[in-house]
């Protein structure tokens, strides 16, 4: 295997006494799509800002394209496209001005940027808004513009911090499609998300993060296989009854998680399990059989749900 594009060892970041990132290791190969999945405060954005060669680390090593981002910041950043969690567009300028100015920060020629803007406006579906001030855009449009802005320099590595937060389902799917195409062109993607469907759709490989540490690493399918059963039966008996029936139900499946409003029963065959429960004389008010997801992996690893 060729040398990884990004290599992180023992990365730690402290804010005062608080450890936001606690000794994490991972590699990202060229052309790969790599994800950081985790709940609020897991340290995803902190890690991303270090990968973006802007924030400094407390300890550990980071190499991006064979260079330490702390020593070669500008050189490393010349290869990166960054989409921060919070849009930081210039509201006073128009859509196309925002793209233009950003391109200039990369020292790109006016001619190159002008052509690129056309392509990016199409990409972000903002052709009609080109001369509109950013402050007049909707949240989803701003998000799309921020993503487009990250592409103005044709980066080798695109860092996306929760790219689809604030987008409607249609815009999300379009964006996934666009990111997929970038990946086909050889762009390496690193993204954070707390949407498991997004992680499953976009990531070749991901790490599950919690409280600054990596809990598990693998492909979405691999993680599910390793940490969960094939199917999940979700049953509700009403909030009081849930607790009552839980001990008995727990003996009927491989593993069970008790959430405030429902019980998750892990099994290879959900329908069969549901029948068994009904036979035993317990009637769930609602029930649902579904495939295991990364959400279940996360629950297993941390005892908490990903989105509270």
């Amino acid at each position, binding site marked *: 295997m060729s040398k990884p594009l990004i290599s992180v060892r023992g990365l730690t970041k402290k804010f005062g006494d608080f450890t936001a990132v606690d000794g994490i290791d991972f590699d990202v190969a060229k052309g790969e799509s790599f994800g950081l999945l985790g709940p609020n405060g897991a340290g995803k954005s902190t890690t991303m800002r270090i990968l973006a060669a802007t924030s400094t680390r407390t300890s550990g090593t980071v190499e991006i394209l064979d260079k330490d981002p702390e020593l070669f910041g*500008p*050189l490393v*950043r010349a290869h990166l496209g960054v989409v921060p969690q919070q849009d*930081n567009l*210039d509201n006073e*300028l128009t859509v196309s001005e925002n793209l233009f100015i950003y391109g200039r*920060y990369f*020292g790109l020629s006016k001619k190159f940027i002008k052509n690129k803007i056309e392509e990016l406006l199409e990409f972000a579906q903002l052709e009609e808004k080109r001369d509109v001030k950013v402050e007049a855009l909707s949240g989803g449009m701003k998000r799309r513009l921020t993503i487009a*802005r990250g592409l103005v320099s044709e980066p*080798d590595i695109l860092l996306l911090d929760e790219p689809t937060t604030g987008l409607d389902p249609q815009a999300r799917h379009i964006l996934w499609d666009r990111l997929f195409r970038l990946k086909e062109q050889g762009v390496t993607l690193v993204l954070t998300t707390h949407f498991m469907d997004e992680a499953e759709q976009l990531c070749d490989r991901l790490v599950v993060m919690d409280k600054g540490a990596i809990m598990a690493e693998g492909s979405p399918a691999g993680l599910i296989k390793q940490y969960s059963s094939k199917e999940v039966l979700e049953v509700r008996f009403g909030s009081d009854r849930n607790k009552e029936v839980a001990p008995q139900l727990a003996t009927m499946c491989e593993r069970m998680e008790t959430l405030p409003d429902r019980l998750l029963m892990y099994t290879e065959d959900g329908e069969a399990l549901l029948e068994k429960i009904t036979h035993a004389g317990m009637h769930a008010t609602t029930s649902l059989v579904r495939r295991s997801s990364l959400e279940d992996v996360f629950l297993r690893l941390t005892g908490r749900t990903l989105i509270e």
Partner: protein
Amino acid sequence: MNTGIDVPQIQRFGALYIASARLRSMSKWRTIIAAVDIGNPLFYLIAVGIGIGVLVEQGSGTSGTSGIKYIAFIAPALLANTAITGIMDETVFPTIEGFKWRKLFFAQNATPITGRQIALGVYLAALCRAIFSVSVYYLLLLAFNVVDFGVSVLIIPIAILGGAAFGAVILYFAAKIEKDDQFFNILGRLILMPMFLFSGTFFPLTSMPIYLQPIGWVSPLWHATELGREAAFDYGIGNTLVLIHLVVLLTLVVVGLNLSMRQFERRLAK
């Protein structure tokens, strides 16, 4: 990497890219900036030239003001003060905005541009604003016959140097601000206003009690005002003092700017 990206070029000219982006943003406010930069001197020249100046001269003649008209005496101070407020507007607001309100600096820093270049770029654009404001003011001074065209042109660069000295230092403090709620009150009322009043602006510093004079000594406004008076009329402070004033102002520029650039870099790297 995109072959159009020339990192050494960005390392040389990055500050200018930032400055030009700042000027583009400022140009969105050009009507307001022009109104302020023309209106403000007009009010002063009318109020002081016609009102206060006449009163002062009725009271003590021109004996307290080196034998020249009162308005001409305070003109170099007003000019320097214009440079200072202009530069302040274009450093303090963009800086707090860049770090806190809209986080534009973080966007700029995600490119090959460095924190040091962002600080320098903001500063350079603010200097451009001061050059504009001060030049407009000078033209009005000519129009109102307060100064004669000639050597007095030197009060333009002197005023800008005064603004540059103040701006370099205030840029550092603006970049330090985490909580902005009281900053503007403190800046306006406890720093700018006393500086304006006690820097030998309206009367020579030496006519104040000695315990108030240190305010002038640390104030860029006073140093720029003294230099400006030397350029505008026969003030006669002598070469040594001229040199001292210049050295103080240039030192503030160099030290302030270095501190600012370091602070920008540090804060962005958090």
